[in-house]
């Protein structure tokens, strides 16, 4: 952990009361869903019987983790002691260090959230004998999608100066990604994060969506780097 930005962010996030509360809410929602979905009769909620409540748990995870990741980077959820990318420009860190540190801290947070919720997911998957490979694939899909969308937060934090425009752009992006893609033709609907998680939950690797969200994340990181470099030095 040689990146000072990553080190500082993780220290701040580890001590943040707000992030702790967010994690508690995330675990509480996931736990409540797992518990309430315990009666096997509830598996009949889908006409096809192919889906089950474990897929619903994945849907909740992909939505909450993706929102949490981007909201933390865009400062919508302000973490005590964590500095934004723009503030760090005035510190003796290169733009590459800042972008890499912010990206890595976001990915670490995502992995932590998925890890702490893993026992609850295990409960709902083992009970339904879902193969481990499918579960791992689903978690990897959520991580990539959440990281890719989270990078929009990093970019918007640098690009937009006012908090209102940042929030507007953030929510607009989330709505496009989660709702707009659901209205696309069937072939393109696979890029919806929920559809991608559902595909992974059934054992089918959603390679195209994974590639697109990873590329989007990388592009946003590059965009953030270019923007930081263009800023006049302190």
């Amino acid at each position, binding site marked *: 952990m040689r990146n000072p930005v990553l080190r500082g962010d993780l220290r701040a996030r580890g001590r943040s009361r707000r992030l702790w509360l967010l994690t508690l809410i995330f675990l509480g929602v996931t*736990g409540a869903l797992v518990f309430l979905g315990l009666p096997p009769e509830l598996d009949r909620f889908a006409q096809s019987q192919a889906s089950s409540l474990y897929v619903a748990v994945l849907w909740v995870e992909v939505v909450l983790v993706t929102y949490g990741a981007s909201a933390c980077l865009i400062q919508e959820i302000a973490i005590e002691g964590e500095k934004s990318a723009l503030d760090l420009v005035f510190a003796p860190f290169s733009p590459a260090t800042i972008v890499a540190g912010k990206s890595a801290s976001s990915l670490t947070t995502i992995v932590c959230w998925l890890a702490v919720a893993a026992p609850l997911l295990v409960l709902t998957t083992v*009970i339904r004998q879902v193969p481990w490979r499918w579960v791992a694939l689903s978690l990897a899909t959520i991580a990539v999608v959440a990281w890719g969308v989270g990078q929009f937060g990093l970019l918007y934090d640098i690009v937009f100066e006012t908090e209102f425009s940042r929030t507007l752009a953030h929510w607009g992006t989330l709505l496009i990604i989660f709702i707009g893609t659901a209205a696309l033709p069937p072939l393109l609907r696979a890029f919806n994060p929920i559809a991608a998680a559902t595909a992974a939950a059934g054992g089918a690797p959603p390679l195209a969506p994974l590639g697109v969200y990873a590329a989007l994340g990388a592009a946003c990181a590059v965009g953030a780097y270019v923007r930081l470099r263009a800023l006049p030095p302190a």
Partner: protein
Amino acid sequence: MLLIICAWPRAPATLGGPITETPAPEVRVGFGGVVKIGVPVPVHVVIPPLPFAGGAELIVDAPALGPQVGRVVASRVIPFQAVPGAARAFDIPVVVNDSRRPLAVIVAINGREVLRREISIPPERVSDRLLVALSDEQAGLASLRRPPLGVVTSYITGDTLPRRWQEYGAVDLLVIRDLEAAALGRTQQEALLTWVRLGGRLLLIARPGSRLAALDSILPAAAGEAHAVDSLSTLSLRYGGAFPPGPYPLVALQPRPGTRVIAQDKVPLIVSRREGAGKVTIWAFDPWLPSYLEWGGRLRLWDETIGAGAPAAVDPDALAEQLPASTPLDPLAHAAVGGAIVLYIAALMWCVRRWPTRAGAALGLVIVAFGVAGFALLADLTRARSAALIEATVLQPAEGTGVARATTVASVAVPYGGRYRVTAPPAVFATPVAPASDLKAVLTADGTVLTGTLRAGEAPRALLAVSAASIVVSAWLSADNRRLTIDLGSLRLQDAELRWHDRLVVLGDLPPGRSVMEISADAWAAAANDGRTRSEFSSHLRDGIFRGPTGDAILNGTTPVLDGELQWPAPVFVLDGARAPGRRLTILLAPLDRR
């Protein structure tokens, strides 16, 4: 040229068939190739010497018409160890449900198919009424095929008789004319006796000097020496038709007590006796002889001997419909899961909040690891407590034989979906009630293992087992229907009742041993208004018996039937890994004798 190349027959190896040149297995299906739809028939397979060694499986795929979409194939499997150069022979009971598609016999070694043979069953080899004859003369009964009898006749030899009594299910009448006693093995003898006692019909053609010690216990008469009579007017009067001029060769019969005799001038011609639920008949004459083949009344005699089929048995489909459709989740498991979730979240969040350091993070990881292991165990436990087997057995005793037909219907519920494994004892014929492709029956020395998969939320899978149970229960009514005597041996009968047509008499709980009750004429009440408070499961099950397709045949016999809940010790099916208690109920269904 291109058309010729395309149409040219290709070698089997290129057609994706077996990769070996070993000859195909020898397969014998049913009785001389004749089968009856929907009942178990014997399939004998001889596997030629193979050049392979290892774990092998003989698979018989029987096509079926089932509720599932697409083609349904019911698989029965016998695992064995293949030894290079050694031939193997197997008997496997199979239910043919769809004769339009071939039966496939497959040999797989180490999971790889090495032999395959497909057996087509032509329509003329499918029969509703089947007469099986053990006779050296394999002709003379062809006329039975014509209306009004419509009986298909099949000639077999003694060594091909079934080794399981359930495989006689297709046979309406077994005729023994020429049978070497030595050709009949012990298991074949027992299977034959059990089948007769549980409703089978056996006809023996007396031959001079023939001795069948194995069947002596059920024979209604002893055969003696050959002689002849000049007239068979008794048979002509009874069955019509005229005989060609005599004399008529016969074998002397010495009827045993309790038999029904048709005699010509005190010379027994036909002697018969009920044996349990079945019937055994001896003819003193040989119907294969020309004088009898030319007799015009012989078809009526055959028709009477074949009878109307086996006695009414309970309908498995009707019973299966009465089994509970779902298993409620154990509240204890629900509470344990809820508590574990709360405990996990509280411990993790407290640790992270209390120690926001690297050590705290490491401790958090440990809690997560324990959480994964603990929740996996808890999930297994919850799953095991929800998977359950509900079983209902109907015992129909064969009067005076100490044996009963046991029809067991069970439902396997795996509410969260996944694989199940159910074992039935070796002497039981176990099969799904409705044919299913996703269910495999493996016949092992320990019994029949039924394995399959249920999807989450899918309805329970209904299974059927047919077996013979040893039971010493007898019940009879006095000739005036006023006095009922029941001997239950060491068993206890709960919620007992007498049923006849649409009336019933409530008898209540009956203790072990002999009970004698007076039944007054006004004790009979309408069955629909009994107002009883027995368990819901028991009520539903009795509805399945008496209101099912065979209910009328059971209730409208010549005597009432006794029914009640029997305290029966052993389950038939065992569900592996199930921790839920499940439910089990045994119903006694005994037609009363009149003495």
